[in-house]
């Protein structure tokens, strides 16, 4: 008896993104399946964040095919946005709105019912409960990162895109983020984590994809990047 075909939740083929003269992404192929977390690794300017923005429906692809949950992101970006939870790499917060107002906006636009209990729980887990009604422009970088993860995870999305979620976050925040990734995996979501922190990527993800110069140079089991041998292999892929 043959195995049923596994359809990837994220299916990117030949993705190109150009901003004027600059080609930010030059032919990336990427597949990520349900119930798995994939690390997106690479140097600055490798195309990680731009790829994430395309998958989130924020930036349209210049060329190539990008399917998220079987939906073409270029054809129906709003439908893709319903399935995706996105933590952007920079900021990600409206400066003069409170965390609760961010959550209300997300809940309303995503048509969530009974979301308040989960929202409060997430805020408590990320130690943001005390500042739920404070304007975010006064937040530290780490607080902002943690709230961005909360916003991405609120609606338990089919695809969770976390761009630099550990950047400047304290150990408790890192643990809470790891727990969110594990929860998402456990309920069958596909998780994509872009980070420069190799050790955390290995802990959080089962597979890893390395980008260089806007293109994919390797795809492997995350364990292959662990230890000194993994560090050497990773460095070799970056050069």
């Amino acid at each position, binding site marked *: 008896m043959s195995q049923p075909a596994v359809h990837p939740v994220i299916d990117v083929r030949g993705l190109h993104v150009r901003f004027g003269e600059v080609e930010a992404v030059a032919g990336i192929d990427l597949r990520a399946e349900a119930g798995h977390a994939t690390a997106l690794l690479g140097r600055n300017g490798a195309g990680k964040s731009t790829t994430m923005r395309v998958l989130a429906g924020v930036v349209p692809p210049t060329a190539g095919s990008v399917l998220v949950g079987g939906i073409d992101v270029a054809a129906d*970006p709003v439908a893709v*946005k319903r399935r995706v939870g996105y933590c*952007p790499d920079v900021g990600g917060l409206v400066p003069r709105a*409170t965390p609760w107002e961010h959550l*209300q906006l997300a809940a309303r636009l995503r048509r969530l019912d009974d979301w308040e209990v989960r929202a409060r729980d997430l805020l408590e887990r990320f130690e943001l409960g005390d500042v739920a009604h404070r304007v975010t422009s006064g937040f530290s970088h780490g607080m902002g990162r943690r709230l961005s993860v909360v916003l991405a995870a609120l609606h338990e999305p089919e695809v969770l895109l976390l761009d630099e979620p550990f950047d400047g976050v304290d150990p408790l925040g890192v643990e809470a983020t790891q727990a969110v990734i594990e929860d998402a995996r456990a309920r069958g979501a596909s998780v994509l984590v872009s980070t420069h922190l190799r050790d955390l990527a290995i802990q959080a993800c089962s597979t890893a994809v390395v980008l260089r110069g806007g293109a994919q140079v390797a795809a492997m089991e995350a364990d292959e990047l662990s230890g000194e041998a993994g560090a050497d292999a990773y460095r070799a892929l970056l050069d």
Partner: protein
Amino acid sequence: MPTARSSTDPLAAGWVRAVADLGHLMRFRAATVRRPRTTAVAVLVLLGVTLAASVGPLLVEGAGSGTVLEDHLGAMLAGFLVLAIASSMASGGGRELVPREQAAIHPIDHRTEHLGALVLAPLNFAWLLQAWLLLGVTARITGSDGWLGGQAVAAAWVVCATALAQVVGWLVETVRRTTHGIAVVRTVAVVLAVVGVGLQATHRLLPLLDALPTHHLADAITVRDGARPVVLALLALTAAAVVAGALPAGVALRRTPREELKVESGSHPARSLPSSDLAVLRRIDRGSVWRSVPMRRGLVVLALGPGLVALGGGMDWTEVLVLPALVVSGGALLFGVNAWCLDGRGALWRESLPVEPGTVFAARALTLAEWLGSAAVVTIALAALRAGVPSAVEVLALATTMVVVTLQVVAVSMSWSGRRPFPVQLSSARATPAPPIVMVGYSARLAVSTTLTAMLFSAAAQTPAWWLVPVMAVPFLLWSWVRLRRARGWWVDASQRARVVVAVAA
């Protein structure tokens, strides 16, 4: 004998370093101009208009003969100082040469900040308009005989008044940043406004302005002789003001900006979830506007300033018709010309939410229209206190004019916002939604188009044909609607929207 500057002269060394740093910062700003050719053309246009204002009146018949302008030149010179002070106060001491977020990592001295604010002061359309007016009136009064001396005095006064206003601006900002400073500044501002309106209402404001020491300057211009010592005295006063201004600038910049911190770290209790996508988007947009210090402060000045002038001057309804245009075009300069910057770095996350882009556009445009409309209503309410009971025709003309200029400004602003987005946080009272030279272009275009529109409607309202104003409004509304739809089409396009979002989130 050594002739080098003594190392024990830290004050002089500080100023030398400040001037050098100012040069570095100006070169940095110049290098980051996106369209250098356009900027060069804009600078040439400004210089051309200045030359025209200075020389043009000589070509008109009657130049050099005594006019009523001569009697009130002193008041006009004093008025320029008042305007410069108001501008400096509203902008928290003066505009930033480099945004606070970018400047924070650099060792930029308070003297450099002070000089930067002075250099940027002329990049303000109200300042330019008043300066051109003074040069033009001076040329008209002097004629070709004594033109050079008159222009030199007027130009020296413009520079001197700007430097003096900067000192006052920093002093007010110093007070504002003390424990009870906000309350003190507001109280003093209200008292001065009430006194000003009272003086104007009792016809004593103009005599008071005429009696100010600026009448000596006016005398120097009108007698067409003795300009040299006056210019030298003004330049000496300017130098003293520039140096003196650094002191309160240093104190103010060392103190915590309490108003900004209070507004931006405030708590806002949860409210019930709005019933529609548009409503929830508008709530977020409204919060972004009303929780910003420069926007709140700017709106208060814009709404109350013309309103108080109208109240004091006892304007009638045909004159009041022009006010909404002034207020609405000024209000758009507070954020409307770069409306997408309200989201700041949250733009990326907001764009990832599942909502039709047309709804997002509608929310932002409505928030802008509401903001502009509210300022205009306050102005009109103040003006109405002495304008008497309007006739039905006047009410119709006023409502029509408001709708026309508001739609006109919203359409233009949303169009510019989509085409030229800038990453601006608008957290500091000294921030502007676009670079200063761009703001001059925006303000000039808005002021000219809306004022001409309002003057046209004001003239139409004075004819016996009551239907003329609403009929005239139709083509204006249609054109603005087309422009707004075009701006919406631009935003709805995924590639253009991505460009805007990435730009404002940078």
